C-alpha cells in the first residue's frame, strides 16, 4: 500500500510539473465543449436554392413564395433555363434546384396532377436528405392549400380525409442538438484523457529509460500499474465534473438522472479506457507509436459509437461490431441518465458489459506487461 501511495504521489508531482499537462487538463475540455457543441449541429439552415420557374403562373408563384419565406431556404438565383441551373449547381452556387415546368398550373387544373423536379447536390448525404425533406414538406403544404382552395374542401368534409400526425419529442422536446451533443462530447473528452495521457505516460518511462531502473527493483507490477493509472482515473473524473459544470452553465443541459450514477459508471468506464491505454503502451516502444495506436482506436470507436451518427442506421455488421465498442455503451448510458433520468436498473446491462470489458482489458494489459524482455 505504501508503495502504491508513493507512486501515486510521484505521478501527481510529475503531471503537475509537466508544462503541457495543466493546459491539457483545463483548456481542452473548455475548447472542445464550447467549439464542438456549437459547431456540430445537424440542423441545416440557409440551403441555397435555385429556382427555375417556367410556368410563372399564380400557383407557381405561390410555391416560390413559400420557399422564399422558409427559414431553411435561401433563394440565390432564378433562371428560366434548366441547363443554366445545373451549371449553378455544378459551380456550387446552390445546393438545390427547384424546376417548375411550363403549364404546371394548367396540368394541375386539367389533370389534377402536375410534376415538379428537384435537383439536389448530394455530396453530403445528410444535407441532401434534409433538403429533400424540407422541400417536400413545403410542396405538400402547397398541395393542401390548392386542394382546399379549388375544391372548397374544409376540415371535417368527408370528401377529403387525411391522417394528421402530431409530434411530441420526449426527453428533448425542442430537439435541441446541444442537449444531445454535450453528453457525447463529454465522453469524447474523458476518453481522450484516459487513452492518450495514461498510455503515453507509461510508454514515456520506456522511452526515457526509467523503466530499466524500475524493472530491477522488487516493485510488483500490479503495484506499479495501479500507481500509474489512479492519477489519470482521478483526473478524468475531475474532467467529467468540469465538463458537466460547463454543460450546465453554458448550454443549460438537463441533468435529470442521478449524478452519483453518472460518476459511478464513468469510474467503471475509465477503467476500460485506462486498460486500453495501458495495453497500447505495452505493445509500443515510444510515444509516437503509442500515439498512432491510440488515435486509431479512438477514431474507429468514436465514429462507430453513435456520437455523430445513429447506431441504428449502421449496417448489421457495424451494429454487431459496436457490441465490443465501450464508447458506444458509455455514450448510451450518459444520454440515458442525463437526459432521460434512467436509473441503475435501466442501465444495468451496460454496466455489466463495461465491467466485463474492464476485467478483460486489464487482464490482457497486465499479462502483456513484462518486466523481463
Amino acid at each position: 500500500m505504501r508503495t502504491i501511495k508513493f507512486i501515486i504521489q510521484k505521478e501527481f508531482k510529475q503531471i503537475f510539473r509537466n508544462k503541457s499537462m495543466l493546459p491539457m487538463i483545463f483548456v481542452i475540455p473548455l475548447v472542445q465543449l464550447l467549439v464542438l457543441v456549437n459547431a456540430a449541429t445537424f440542423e441545416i439552415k440557409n440551403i441555397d436554392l435555385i429556382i427555375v420557374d417556367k410556368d410563372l403562373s399564380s400557383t407557381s408563384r405561390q410555391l416560390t413564395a413559400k420557399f422564399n419565406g422558409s427559414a431553411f431556404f435561401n433563394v440565390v438565383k432564378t433562371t428560366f433555363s434548366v441547363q443554366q441551373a445545373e451549371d449553378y449547381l455544378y459551380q456550387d452556387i446552390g445546393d438545390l434546384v427547384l424546376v417548375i415546368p411550363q403549364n404546371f398550373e394548367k396540368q394541375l387544373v386539367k389533370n389534377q396532377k402536375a410534376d415538379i423536379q428537384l435537383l439536389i447536390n448530394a455530396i453530403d448525404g445528410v444535407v441532401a436528405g434534409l433538403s429533400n425533406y424540407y422541400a417536400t414538406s413545403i410542396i405538400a403544404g402547397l398541395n393542401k392549400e390548392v386542394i382546399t382552395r379549388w375544391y372548397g374542401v374544409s376540415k371535417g368534409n368527408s370528401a377529403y380525409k387525411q391522417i394528421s400526425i402530431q409530434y411530441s419529442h420526449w426527453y428533448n422536446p425542442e430537439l435541441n442538438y446541444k442537449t444531445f451533443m454535450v453528453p457525447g462530447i463529454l465522453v469524447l473528452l474523458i476518453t481522450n484523457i484516459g487513452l492518450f495521457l495514461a498510455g503515453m505516460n507509461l510508454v514515456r518511462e520506456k522511452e526515457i529509460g526509467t523503466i530499466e531502473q524500475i524493472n530491477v527493483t522488487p516493485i510488483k507490477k500490479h503495484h506499479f500499474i495501479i500507481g500509474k493509472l489512479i492519477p489519470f482515473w482521478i483526473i478524468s473524473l475531475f474532467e467529467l465534473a468540469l465538463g458537466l459544470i460547463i454543460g450546465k452553465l453554458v448550454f443549460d443541459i438537463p441533468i435529470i438522472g442521478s449524478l452519483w450514477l453518472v460518476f459511478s459508471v464513468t469510474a467503471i468506464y475509465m477503467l476500460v479506457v485506462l486498460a486500453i491505454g495501458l495495453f497500447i503502451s505495452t505493445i509500443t516502444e515510444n510515444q509516437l507509436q503509442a500515439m498512432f495506436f491510440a488515435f486509431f482506436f479512438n477514431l474507429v470507436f468514436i465514429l462507430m459509437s453513435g456520437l455523430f451518427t445513429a447506431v441504428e442506421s449502421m449496417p448489421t455488421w457495424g451494429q454487431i461490431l459496436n457490441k465490443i465498442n465501450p464508447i458506444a455503451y458509455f455514450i448510451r448510458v450518459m444520454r440515458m441518465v442525463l437526459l432521460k433520468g434512467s436509473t441503475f436498473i435501466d442501465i444495468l446491462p451496460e454496466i455489466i458489459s463495461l465491467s466485463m470489458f474492464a476485467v478483460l482489458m486489464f487482464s490482457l494489459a497486465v499479462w502483456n506487461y513484462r518486466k523481463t524482455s
Partner: protein
Amino acid sequence: MISVQNIKKSYGDTLAVSNINFSVEQAELFGLIGPDGAGKTTIFRILTSLILPDEGKAILNGYDVVKDYKKIRQIIGYMPGRFSLYQDLSVEENLNFFATVFGTTIEENYDLIKDIYKQIEPFKKRRAGKLSGGMKQKLALSCALIHKPEILVLDEPTTGVDAVSRKEFWDMLQRLKEKGITILVSTPYMDEASLCDRVALIQNGQIMQIDTPDNIVKSFKHELIAVKTENMHKLLHDLRNFSDTHSAFLFGQNIHYTSINSKINNEELKHYLQKNNHKNIEINKIQANIEDCFMELMT
C-alpha cells in the same frame, strides 16, 4: 559472489555473447573491459534479470538469475549505462522514491550513501535533469545503493564524465568495496582497468582473458617501444609496411610498436625511418599497459 557459466544470448540472428564464464569473489571489484558493442551490457542485463540467457547459468550469492529473479532484484543495485532516474523529480525525491520502492528509507541506510550523497546534498531540491554529468552519476549511485545491496552492478558508470569526477567515482567504488560489497563494473576506458582487482577483457561477445591487471600486463610477451616523429600519419603507414613489424598502433602522442623479433633493433628501425624521410625520430622503450594487451589480443 557471482558465478557465470556458459552464458549465451542472441538477438534474433545476431549473436550478442557466447561462452561467457567468470566468477567474482565477495567484496571484489571486477571489471568488464571492452569496446562499445562487445557485449558488456548484455551480460549485465542477464545478471540483473532484465533479459533471459539463451543458454547457461548465472548465480549471484546463491540465487539463480532466472529462477530466483525476485530475490536477485532485492540483493543487487544496478546502475544502467543510460541515466535512468526521473529527470523531472528532484534529487531528494528520486532517492526517496527508490528507497520506498525497495521498502526502506533514506535514514535507514544513510551510512552507506553518506559519502556520496553529501556531495550532492546541497542540490537536493534541484531536478535530476538539471544536474551535471558527474552529479547525475553520484545520484544514480546513491539510488542504486539506497537498499544496501550485496552486489553492485555498474554499466559504464564513467562514460561521459570528466576526468576529475571519474577519479572521484573510482575512489568511491574502492570505499564501497571495503564495506564488503561485491562490485561488477564495465568500462570502455582501458586506463580504468588498472583500478579493478581483476578484469575480463571482452571483445565481440567473447571473453578473451581474465586476470588481475598486473598479470595481464605481465603476460605481454613482446618488447614494446614508443616511436615519435614529425609526421605521425606517415610514420604509422611506414611502420606498418616495415618487414619486421608485428604491430603498430597510435597511442596518444606516440605509436606503440612491437617487432616480430624478440629483441627490437633500434638502429635498424631508425635507419629505415630516416630512409623514409622522417625527422626528429624519438624511440623509447616502454612498459606495456592494459590497452597494449588488449590490442595484442585483438590482432
